[in-house]
């Protein structure tokens, strides 16, 4: 963003002002995540930077809260992590299967009532979570699924499918349908065509939709708060209770782990997006 030499002073000033604003916004976006890192290694029990930490005194840092997270007595994190992963994995599987199949139908040009059906399928993403939570709770209570893993998985499938539908329809929008016709003309049945031809081509979209569904489920707290019993506690629920009651540094240790997890997810999502754009022939 070098400025040409002939730039007038006022535009020069404006340009530096603009760069300053952008720098501020980027710091505003990313800095909060980095506050958590050092504080999670705090040797003390308070959530502020101690004098020792400011002077980089090695004694002021410790792995105490990480040990507490893993080995701590009466610590709910183990159970919560187990539940969170089980629920998120099943919810992702359900969302991906239902969402991909629906997206295949939706991107067919023969699809009747496309607009209204698309709007219905995406609605869980648009309706405020609190309302989804109330509605899903009423359903699960009636179906006897409140406070069960099954109920929470179903709820997260509802919330996750819109993401799969959106990403897969987007991938299919650049899909060359003549390849499926070619497969059919060579004697392949529709299921075989899907597995051998369509799926490998749209796989990046399917996986990135799956990642969205996974994160949605893994991070979801509003609906789970209505549905979960003591046995179904998840990481977000534990964080929610922790943040409401006593802010212990153990939460920061957990938060650090979650940031690492989200970094991994971000990297895979980015790689997939690039691959999918390459496959769709979008060169930028």
């Amino acid at each position, binding site marked *: 963003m070098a400025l040409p030499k002939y730039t007038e002073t006022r535009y020069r000033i404006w340009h530096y002002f*603009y760069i300053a604003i*952008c720098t501020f*916004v*980027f710091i*505003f976006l990313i800095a*909060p*995540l980095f*506050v958590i890192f050092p504080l999670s290694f705090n040797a003390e029990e308070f*959530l*502020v930077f101690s004098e020792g930490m400011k002077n980089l005194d090695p004694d002021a840092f410790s792995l105490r809260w990480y040990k507490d997270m893993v080995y701590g007595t009466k610590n709910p994190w183990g159970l919560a992590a187990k539940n969170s992963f089980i629920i998120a994995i099943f919810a992702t599987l359900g969302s991906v299967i239902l969402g991909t*199949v*629906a997206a*295949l*139908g*939706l991107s*067919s040009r*023969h*699809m*009747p009532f496309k607009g209204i*059906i*698309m*709007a*219905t*399928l995406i*609605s*869980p993403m*648009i*309706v*405020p979570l*609190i*309302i*989804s*939570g*109330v*509605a*899903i709770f*009423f*359903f699960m209570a009636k179906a006897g699924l409140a406070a069960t893993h099954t109920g929470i998985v179903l709820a997260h*499938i*509802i919330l996750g*499918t819109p993401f799969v539908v959106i*990403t897969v329809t987007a991938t299919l929008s650049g899909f060359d349908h003549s390849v499926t016709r070619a497969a059919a003309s060579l004697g392949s049945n529709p299921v075989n065509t899907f597995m051998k031809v369509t799926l490998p081509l749209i796989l990046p979209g399917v996986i*990135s939709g799956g990642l969205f569904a996974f994160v949605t489920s893994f*991070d979801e*707290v509003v609906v789970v*708060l*209505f549905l979960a019993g003591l046995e179904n506690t998840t990481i977000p629920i534990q*964080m929610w209770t922790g*943040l*409401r009651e006593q*802010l212990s540094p153990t*939460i*920061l240790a957990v*938060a650090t782990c*979650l*940031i690492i997890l*989200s*970094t991994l997810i*971000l990297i895979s999502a980015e790689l997939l997006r690039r691959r999918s754009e390459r496959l769709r022939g979008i060169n*930028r």
Partner: protein
Amino acid sequence: MSSETNQILTTDGIPLEISLRKAERKNKIKAFLLVVPLLLFLIITYIFPIAEMFTRSIDDKMITNMLPKTFKSMETWNGKDLPPEEVFVSFLEDFKILVDKKEHGKLAQRLNKEKNGFNTIVKKLFRQIKRNKIDESQSIKEQIMKVHKRWRNVEYWQAIKRTAPPYTSAKYLKAMDMYLNEDNKITQVSEDRRIHRILWLRTVEVAFFVTIFCFLMGYPIAHLLATLPMKYSNLLMICVLLPFWTSLLVRTASWMILLQQQGVVNDFFVMIGLVADDNRPEMMYNKVGTYVAMTQILLPFMVLPLYSVMKTISPSLMRAGKSLGGTPFVAFWKVYFPLTIPGIGAGCLLVFILAIGYYITPALVGGASGTLISNQIAYHMKTTLDWSFASAMGLMLLGGVLVIYWLYNKLVGVDNIKLG
């Protein structure tokens, strides 16, 4: 097409038009069948329960089922003088059944909501019945009227009659701080008890300002990301995408640490001498905290649509604007800015929709003055267990969101939503 044209036949002798229509219908059914599993699943577990929230919010059948005979006999009552003997007789019959089922307490509670003072007189009547003081061979009306002077007051009987319809709009009125008075007119509650209207206004206000802040902060960086060379912009994009993928609770937690009185932001203010050390401002548990945290959390939803629109604008357009004599500001305002309007619309509506239903962040950093309507819904779902009131408020919120969603669809189209 003229009717004299010879019909084209397929090899099996069927007119081509019919054959094509048949194939088309088959394809339609095939496509539809693929959508059916998800559609059915969502309708059963999601759409239908939302519709059920509506019946729940207007439902007032409990009392209709408690006093069936009373309401039946009240149909002939003029509603101005004390009701005739038969109303008293059927009321007593209904009441005795309720006493047997031990449900008279519920009745007292429900009637007391309609008019204060029912609690006492229903309990008094209950005691009289328990002691077998009511003699069925004599006038029931006279005996009930003797139980308490309020049973002689026609206003109480009018109140009972008002509860007769199985549906009520009371919950919706309550959410607007209004109620139906004795003459069935919509009245506002006294000024000191108007809590919900404040919450609605605050919710819209917070959503509006968060959208504005997100726009003001998102536009410059989206522009920078779209104009920088790829290798730098990819790096900076991480600053947008990492918060986007990070847990909402993690981000809220970090704001709680940053904004607390001994927190980093306050430390910084003290360091640069903006505030005195013993006079650190309270930035959490109020609106400031809600605004700051929500803006940071929702900012990626503004940047991403803006970026994807700006990416498609050719830089030569700005150069053309400048070469035709526009200053950079004019070129930006007349050429670049209008082209980004679709992105602005998408980003603003997305952020606004998300902000208006926000719950977790306001509940954690908002304190009492930062709570929004969603917190109130959760409160009635979990604490007071007034589910019909929570449903009513939820549906009012949903109505607002659907209007915005409809606008979004008109302006941008739902299938144009881009993620990352």
